[in-house]
């Protein structure tokens, strides 16, 4: 019998496979030049909208913890929203893209490990997200006077970012599992519906949470975005003296608010990631049982 002649499938292979995934995604993204341009211009116009709003100086209520700096506040919001929605949508979009392009069966049959497969599905989308982030930060700094004050707590900011991405990845895996668990192959799913709406309305991307009714503030506490946005803004803009802004902060007055945010995110990640992973695997397994895994018939 002829033997399997594929090279090693160890770590080096898995990493190379990941970079192959990313390159493929970048080609896909840049193939239609007009769409690429429209995509990037859309990001820019989004930035302009909020920079113009900043001219009205919405620096009043609730902005004390964030140095009354609306431009920095909203740019951080946009950047985080971009990264977190990538974490949230990445697995879903990746599976769907492979499904409709008849690539899923090939990927599932290749020796890439399931974690690499899953990360690989969204890796390309992270690279795209970084372009958007660069536009928000670069455009903000060059055109709208985006500055971060001295005394920004960078390690805390990085920790919050990391934990938030992990937590949202957990939610993203749950969203992707819906493709097969409830047959949500049509482009939307219930998990993202709930999370994105809560995050968009209540988590404070565009305005501080304190302007909302208290019960909505508690509701906002159900999504990681809320802690992530507050944590990173206070770490970067708070000037070393974070203020309690969320209901949870007032519940735990002994802890520093940024620490509370980080803790909340850590707990969230510890729950959401394993649960999301289990659901994702369960979805794939279900699909293999009832034959909906791929478009191949």
């Amino acid at each position, binding site marked *: *019998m*002829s*033997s*399997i002649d594929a090279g*090693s499938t160890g770590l080096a292979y898995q990493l*190379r496979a990941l970079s*192959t995934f990313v390159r*493929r995604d970048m080609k896909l993204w840049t193939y239609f030049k007009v769409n690429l341009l429209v995509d990037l211009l859309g990001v820019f116009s989004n930035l302009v909208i909020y920079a113009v709003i900043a001219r009205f100086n919405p620096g009043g209520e609730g902005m004390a913890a964030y140095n009354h700096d609306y431009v920095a506040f909203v740019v951080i919001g946009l950047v985080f929203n971009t990264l977190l929605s990538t974490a949230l949508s990445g697995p879903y979009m990746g599976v769907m893209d492979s499904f409709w392009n008849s690539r899923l069966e090939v990927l599932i*049959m290749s*020796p890439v490990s399931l974690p690499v497969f899953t990360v690989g599905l969204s890796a390309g989308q992270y690279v795209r997200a970084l372009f958007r982030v660069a536009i928000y930060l670069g455009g903000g700094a060059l055109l709208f006077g985006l500055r971060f004050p001295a005394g920004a707590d960078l390690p805390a900011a990085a920790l919050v970012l990391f934990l938030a991405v992990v937590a949202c990845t957990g939610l993203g895996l749950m969203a992707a599992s819906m493709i097969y668990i409830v047959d949500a192959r049509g482009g939307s799913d219930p998990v993202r519906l709930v999370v994105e709406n809560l995050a968009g309305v209540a988590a404070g991307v565009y305005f501080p949470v304190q302007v909302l009714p208290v019960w909505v503030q508690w509701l906002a506490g159900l999504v990681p975005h809320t802690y992530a946005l507050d944590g990173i803004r206070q770490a970067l803009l708070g000037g070393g003296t974070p203020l309690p802004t969320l209901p949870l902060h007032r519940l735990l007055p002994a802890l520093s608010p940024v620490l509370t945010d980080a803790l909340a995110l850590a707990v969230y990640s510890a729950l959401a990631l394993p649960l999301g992973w289990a659901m994702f695997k369960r979805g794939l397994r279900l699909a293999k049982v009832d034959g909906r895994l791929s478009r191949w018939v």
Partner: protein
Amino acid sequence: MTGRGAAITTTGLRKVFPKRRPAENWMDAMPQLVKGLAGRQDRKVALDGVDLKIEDGELFGLIGANGAGKTTLIKILACLMRPDGGTATVAGYDIHTQRMMAKASSSVLKGGGWTGVLWMRTVSQNLRFQGEMSGLAPALIERRSAEVLELLDLTDKADEVPWYLSAGQRHKLTVALLFMVRTPVVLMDEPTVHLDPNVAQTVRRFIKETVNTKRGQTVLMSTHYLQEAELMCDRVAIIDQGRLLACDSPSRLKRSVYDGSIVEIRADRCTEPGLEALKAIHGVTQVRARLQDAALGRQSIRIYGGNGLNPMAGALEVLGAAGAEVKWAKSAEPSLEEVYLKLVGREIN
């Protein structure tokens, strides 16, 4: 893993699907949803206890009509689907307990589609991508792509994007992707479906000469073209409604359904009484006639002689007496079509 014997085995493989009817509206969907939740959907048995053993190096054909269960069997062997009962091995690896190795031991080709093709990358970039995803060394990737492009007559398309290829060329690309990795087992689901005769011939030759003979890969291919199976395969299995009805070499299968002699005659001005008279010839067990041209009364007739008796002379005499004009007559072999008809009870298409 050499010397483990069979390349593919299945034992009591069973697969049952819920019957899915798309609901027209929500009112329609509700009863189905409730039934589904109660686990009481209508069911469809796609594989019903399939036992199969394919030897190392065989080119094996799985013959069946639409809906017979061919794709289901192939997907299970490719680890893309889980059976509801029974088990299988691929290159000696159990699909339940040694999934990763079983998966790594086979490659899959699906006829009539885009499977595995990146539409926005050129033909040669597609081949490279496939090689990289399989962990091959760059030099090997280059060598194999050049070789397979040559073999499949795609060299001048190497720098074109699949979107702008013809359907046949695109299909050859999916076949070429298969060549990048040499797995012990190759699973092909209707590899020549919807192809024009030229491309189909190229693909068949590639499968038989390159994949099976030269590389020594064991091939399991499904098809509903009986002639194709007869021409290509060492052994075939006939599957209908999820059951294997027979499994043997085409020649033995043919002999098993019929061991007498067969005469094939083309004749004009054939009348019903003439055909009836053929059946009355001593030793004739069966007569099958197919009308070719109503205006001419042209029939294509197959006459089956019982043990030892050749019905040729008798048939020519009877037809002559009935006023028919015999165009040609020859001794014929039974075909897989007859085997299929006899075992399944209807024609395949």
